[in-house]
């Protein structure tokens, strides 16, 4: 099992994240959705990407978040041409309901 960064390392990073233009990982997390939708202001994007440069944990987190999102998008639905045939009883039910 892989380990999280040790407490001392996190404490040092915690101090670094208090410097100007720096944000914490928790604040970074709040921006992920807007970053991926490209709706951050230029300043917010700069601050987000600055954190990304200095924080390995968030780089890895974001990479896994993106990978998971891509899997959901690609696996979530089958292309129309790969769909199973329409059940005849469904077609009949729809047509009967229309006739009523």
């Amino acid at each position, binding site marked *: 099992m892989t380990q999280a960064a040790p407490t001392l390392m996190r404490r040092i990073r915690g101090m670094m994240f208090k410097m100007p233009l720096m944000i914490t990982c928790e604040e970074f997390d709040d921006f992920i959705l807007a970053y991926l939708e490209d709706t951050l202001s230029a300043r917010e994007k700069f601050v987000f990407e600055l954190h990304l440069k200095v924080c390995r944990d968030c780089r890895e987190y974001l990479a*896994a978040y993106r*990978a998971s999102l891509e*899997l959901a998008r690609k696996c*979530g639905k089958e292309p129309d041409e790969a769909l199973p045939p329409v059940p005849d009883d469904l077609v009949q039910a729809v047509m009967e309901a229309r006739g009523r």
Partner: protein
Amino acid sequence: MQKGDRSSATEPDEGEAIAAVANADPAAAERFVRKHAGWMLAVAMRIVRDAHHAEDAVQNAFAKVFDNIGGFGGRSALKTWMHRIVVNESLMLLRKTNRSQTVAIDELQPVFDNNGCRIEDRWMSMETPETLLMRSDIQAQVNGKIDLLPDNYRIILVLRDIEELSTQEVAQLLEISEANVKVRLHRARAALKRLLEPLIRGQAV
């Protein structure tokens, strides 16, 4: 359905089909049902996750389509219009169903220490989506994990990331604020990421 489909105008052959269906031509109506029921059933299944309920949703959706197709003015592509109808009918049925065996969403959220630093196991290796997509069981694996999300989160992920609706559209359909859609989407994605971690870390069999 691709995003581009939604903005395109009604296809040329659809105009005739719409007119025939609106004019109660049974043969045209059946061709119309056969053409569209497959993808509508797939959409409904992704939302209600139950074959019986999905068929009900599609039947209800066709009833709405037949009732309103005369007034369909081609403001959007026909498929886009029908997609919204089947999504809406599926959501109505979903509210009546009780799915079990979902996970607690809070337990799958990222963890931070008192300094706001992320506590995350180090990623020693990461499989790329391209590699994972070559697995024969990948669809079942991913959809199985999506299914574990509680419905009020799962549905947002399905509508936004799979059905490709906008935040605004999802907010309107679910009668919640756009901010709420964004919060739930982010939490759903974070939870799914956690559930898919064994696969992405290359630890899954």
